[in-house]
């Protein structure tokens, strides 16, 4: 390992670090300590982490080091640190989902994703901040205070997985796990200049992922490079018998696709409905330039129309609240977490009610109320029923588009990172951040966001979204890796390296 790297462990990719650890050039403990030091140095300003498991991380790192010393062959991410979104259960470690109502709860079990990370010898540094129960696009709805965008600490890092994206962007971890229900991996990736992938629904086990909307949620990788995302995706993906909705078929080889990095002969569709009005000029500009790069690389670019996408946001804000109103019912103060008002006199109903009143934030209450209403007798058909029909039509739009194209592309988010506080009191403005990412969640297919430059007007990162059919996640990596390579050639470095020093 070069001495430059030794002095700069935090700026390396996960793939590079894993190789250096495997070859004995650096220990996992050194790599882990370097990231813990970085967290100690910057996280008071970024606030990406809700909990740092220093002891656990160092113990895991030492275990990797001793296994390597014993001559064991280790996996492609062995010894590399990772930041885990606080929505995934990790045995013995506080898991809050960004909510007061789960304060103090330590799960007695590991999520499948966590199990697989441990099996891959990934070192888990701690839990990252998020909008409460993953409801939001800015992390401002976290009960524990917002996360700050490393590009500009006065701006939002996206949400709900702003903590995971910011941790990666601030070099506090080379890898993070996010979850994406309507864009919560991709939109934070876009506004922090990082890479984020929402795998095919059923591609990564949801067991241990505290559900927001069961039919939409999916965990996935947050990284600084496409290859790192592929390595992490491969480590956490694949069938899990504990998740009934997990796909039993073998997942495509995403690492090979990232290595292939070749778009020659591919047909790439520009979705007409995901541009124009509402999209910031600099976002559109960088997006168009990136599409030209893909053309130069040998892809054929066509325009496609997905007219039902215009109804996606409306359908989403019926399906998500409906499922979440039921999924969040269990937080009633009876078994774990917060309990309020239990004075020995009050009834069970009163204690449940007081606990939920005190434990949930405004956005969570808003969505629970919306969902409770939408599922009510007499309204079900008009709301939930209609939304499910829209969902089917969106799937058909995708089917028609994928009949013409291998992948579709769009800007990931309509704007670059906005200021903290700017939209927090305007739910509709906040919801519009996800207008381009939501269709994929409704249809269950997969998508990636990767950085394609800085918007000229504000010098903030812009993300491009690649969408592929269900179980064709490999195409995301093939296209993403090719585009990333071409842009890196043009700039001479990754975009994230232009981020200001903290």
């Amino acid at each position, binding site marked *: 390992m070069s001495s430059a790297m030794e002095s700069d462990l935090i700026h390396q990719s996960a793939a590079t670090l894993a190789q250096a650890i495997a070859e004995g050039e650096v220990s996992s403990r050194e790599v882990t300590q370097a990231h813990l030091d970085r967290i100690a140095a910057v996280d008071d300003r970024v606030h990406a982490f809700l909990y740092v498991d220093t002891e656990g991380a160092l113990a895991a790192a030492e275990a990797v080091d001793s296994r390597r010393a014993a001559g064991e062959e280790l996996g492609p991410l062995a010894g590399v640190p990772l930041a885990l979104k606080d929505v995934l259960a990790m045995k013995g470690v506080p898991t809050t989902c960004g909510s007061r109502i789960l304060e103090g709860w330590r799960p007695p*079990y590991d999520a499948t994703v966590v199990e697989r990370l441990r099996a891959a010898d990934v070192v888990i540094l701690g839990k990252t901040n998020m909008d409460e129960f993953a409801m939001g696009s800015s992390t401002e709805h976290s009960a524990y205070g917002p996360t700050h965008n490393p590009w500009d600490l006065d701006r939002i890092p996206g949400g709900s997985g702003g903590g995971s994206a910011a941790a990666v962007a601030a070099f506090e971890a080379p890898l993070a796990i996010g979850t994406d229900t309507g864009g919560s991996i991709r939109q934070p990736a876009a506004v922090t200049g990082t890479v984020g992938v929402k795998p095919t629904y059923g591609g990564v086990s949801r067991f241990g992922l505290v*559900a927001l909307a*069961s039919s939409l949620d999916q965990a996935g990788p947050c990284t600084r490079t496409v290859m790192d995302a592929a390595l992490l995706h491969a480590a956490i993906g694949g069938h899990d018998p504990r998740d*009934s909705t997990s796909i039993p078929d073998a997942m495509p080889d995403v690492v090979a696709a990232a290595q292939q990095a070749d778009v020659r002969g591919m047909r790439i569709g520009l979705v007409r409905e995901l541009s124009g009005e509402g999209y910031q000029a600099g976002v559109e500009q960088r997006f168009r330039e990136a599409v030209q790069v893909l053309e130069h690389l040998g892809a054929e670019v066509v325009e496609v129309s997905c007219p039902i996408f215009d109804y996606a946001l409306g359908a989403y804000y019926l399906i998500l609240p409906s499922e979440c109103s039921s999924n969040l*019912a*269990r937080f009633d103060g009876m078994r774990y977490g917060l309990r309020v008002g239990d004075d020995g006199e009050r009834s069970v109903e009163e204690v*449940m009610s007081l606990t939920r009143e005190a434990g949930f934030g405004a956005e969570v209450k808003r969505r629970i109320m919306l969902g409770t209403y939408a599922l009510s007798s007499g309204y079900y058909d008009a709301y939930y029923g209609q939304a499910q029909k829209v969902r089917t039509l969106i799937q058909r739009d995708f089917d028609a588009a994928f009949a013409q194209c291998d992948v579709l592309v769009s800007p990931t988010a309509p704007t670059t990172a906005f200021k903290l506080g700017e939209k927090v009191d305007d739910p509709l403005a906040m919801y519009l951040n996800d207008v381009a990412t939501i269709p994929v969640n409704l249809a269950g297919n997969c998508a990636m966001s990767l950085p394609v430059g800085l918007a000229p007007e504000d010098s903030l990162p812009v993300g491009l979204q690649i969408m592929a059919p269900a179980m064709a996640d490999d195409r995301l990596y093939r296209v993403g890796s090719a585009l990333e390579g071409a842009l890196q050639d043009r700039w001479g470095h990754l975009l994230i390296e232009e981020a200001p020093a903290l």
Partner: protein
Amino acid sequence: MTEPMPYAEAVAEFEPVIGLEVHVELGTESKMFCSCPTAFGAEPNTQVCPVCLGLPGSMPVMNGAAIESIIRMGLALNCSVVDWCRMARKNYFYPDMPKDYQVSQYDEPICVDGYLDVTVTTDDGPRVFRVEIERVHMEEDTGKLTHAGGATGRIHGADYSLVDYNRAGIPLVEIVTKPVTGTGALAPEVARAYVTELRDIMRGLGVSDVKMEEGSLRCDANVSLNRPGDEWGTRSETKNVNSLRSVERAVRSEIERQAGVLAAGGRVVQETRHFHEDTGQTTPGRSKEQAEDYRYFPEPDLVPIAPDPAWVEQLRAALPEQPSVHRARLAEQWGIGDFEMATLVNAGVLGLVEETVAAGVAPDAARKWWAGELTRVANEREVEPGELGVTPADIGRVEELIATGSLNDKLARQVFEGIMAGEGSADEVVAARGLAVVSDDGALLAAIDEALAAQPDVAEKIKGGKVQAAGAIVGAVMKATRGQADAGKVRDLLLERLGVTE
């Protein structure tokens, strides 16, 4: 409160319509959505895991054995098995429900449109009623609440309540009849015969131990009354019906109560009512005038169930003999007619007789004890014959003792009395109570001489050839020996003593 109307008057004036909802707890090794064991009677909260505790992030996976059981149940009840259906969430807050929703089925039950023919005995001989079955669906059981302190035994007013989640997630099957009309005064008997038949079918299928006293078979009885020619009346739903006998009593009591209300010009309230074993009456529970909104929607954590039709046919082909066919076969083997068989079924002793015959007792003897003495005692004590504490093996032993002349029928009844009083086995009761036919000639002769001396005129008559007068002396001897002598033997000895031949 209005006075109930005497039953005969009630059914002369009104026509009852009944409906029965039966819950059967499946006897699967593991729970419906996790691998926790299901054995009854374990220490509270020892058969639980993150899934059946509904911990955040946990997910259900359907138990294949439960699906197989319910399909076999549906087939045995002449239902159609649908080719595709989903589970649904029934949302309501209650501390015995770990998730504050119950995974159940709503508008897509797995088995529909069946029937069950049941036979009741009347003065004019057996009558067959067809009970149509609307649906057979599956759901998960809830935990069990125990309320401490307070006067009502309900959650309101209790000092505190304890929850045992061992039962939470045990698979339950709900079997719902269509409204049963045209039963007239026989409604209570039809209800009982239906539940009895259902229990026997489930037992034959081996899907449940169907013990009403342990709650593995529970019945809710719906009753409404209308005057002939009028529309159906408002129904009540009686819960807490925990024995076959209670099914009959609860329906009868509701008919009497509702008739009283209606005759007095009152209105039957749509409500749940609780049956009380001690009084045989029902008392009002929750009003159902304001239907609770359970906000059902398809369970997004479980994939739809699509039973392979070929598999369903295999299950159908492998069903055991139907109870009606089984009974016909037994009747032939035992040489009894429809009436005798219906008597055994209605007394709820057929299975007991069958087990007793299997234990080596002659069919007539087995029937005599179960349908006679033991049913009489059971009725007197208001319990089921099977709950008396007398086993088929006990009857086998008593019959052996009768065959060897050690007991007679009168003494045998005392032996059963001892067994029912918990005094031990047949042999132990015989020994402890000193129950044995007196066969010592010396002791008998002394008793005979005493009786003859006490009734010299009778002695003279016998000597004079009036042999029929011997009964008075035999009776006196039997009395003196407290029934322990063999009456035939006493008579022989008496005649011999007096030198008289018949």
